[in-house]
């Protein structure tokens, strides 16, 4: 009986540890869809590091939620930071009029966007897959408070 109680306590402790890790440190996610291809492909396993107050960094791959209920979650790349002006000219992102080097993707020359100033507490996010039409795409300014985690590691199931 004592042995079973001990096992149960161990299981409870492991369960509590897993819960705390997933709640506060890192959470596993499966990628659905190809909007982050070729960096992340559909059905890949990701480990997302939880962030309480997101400090924006260009190039971060982040998971953010929508501001209403029930929320939808998206994974995109941070392209521009608060206070910067972002524009798209023939598929090339320009940050404060300077072209952004994006070795992880291929520019879509059909993409055009007028300069947009990002206010404090907002980042501009976009997916790495530029094969879609710009209008069919979730992209644009996102409040940093809606960013919930940052990509820490990913593993490709299919090669």
């Amino acid at each position, binding site marked *: 009986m004592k042995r079973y109680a001990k096992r149960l306590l161990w299981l409870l402790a492991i369960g509590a540890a897993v819960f705390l890790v997933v709640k506060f440190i890192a959470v596993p996610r499966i990628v*659905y*869809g*190809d909007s982050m291809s070729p960096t992340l492909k*559909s*059905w890949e396993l990701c480990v997302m590091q939880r962030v309480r107050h997101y400090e924006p960094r260009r190039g971060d791959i982040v998971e*953010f939620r*929508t*501001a*209403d*209920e*029930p929320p*939808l979650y998206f994974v995109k790349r941070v392209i521009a930071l608060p206070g910067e002006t972002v524009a798209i000219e023939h598929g090339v992102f320009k940050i404060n009029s300077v072209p952004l080097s994006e070795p992880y993707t291929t520019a879509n020359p059909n993409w055009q966007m007028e300069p947009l100033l990002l206010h404090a507490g*907002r980042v501009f996010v976009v997916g790495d897959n530029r094969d879609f039409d710009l209008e069919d795409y*979730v992209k*644009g*300014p*996102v*409040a940093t408070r*809606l960013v919930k985690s940052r990509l820490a590691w990913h593993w490709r199931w299919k090669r």
Partner: protein
Amino acid sequence: MKWLLRIAMVGIAVFALWRVWQWVFVTDEMRVRKQIAIMESAVEKGKLLQLADAVAADYSDDWGMDKSMLLGGVSSFRSQYDAIFIHLSDLTVTVDPDHQKAQAVFIAKVLAKAKGSFSESEVRSERFRLYFRKNDSTWELIRVESPELKFD
């Protein structure tokens, strides 16, 4: 004759108990949830007649479709894929106090297997708001909205 009478009595009793059960335990919220599950299955399997039964004649939506356009759209969408899987989450059903109208909000994630493909990929993930109207004892879909996403 006596056995026949007994069977009829049992049948009537079972029917009465079933009606009481329905009346007491099956709420309108449960009926709306069941109707959503039926529609989900109808879209997955391409059963347009089943879907048509669940949709009101005066149906409208955010995309400007009426009932016939909706059914045509579902048929056309379904024909592009070998299989479709719809996963609903965060489903909330609210029934009006007069029990004549109801709203349902949920997130639908649609996974589809393209023709000739071995694996399915996500086609879309969207939040929907459905409006239902009670017609006798069934709930029929009268409107679908897809609220705009807010990132601020």
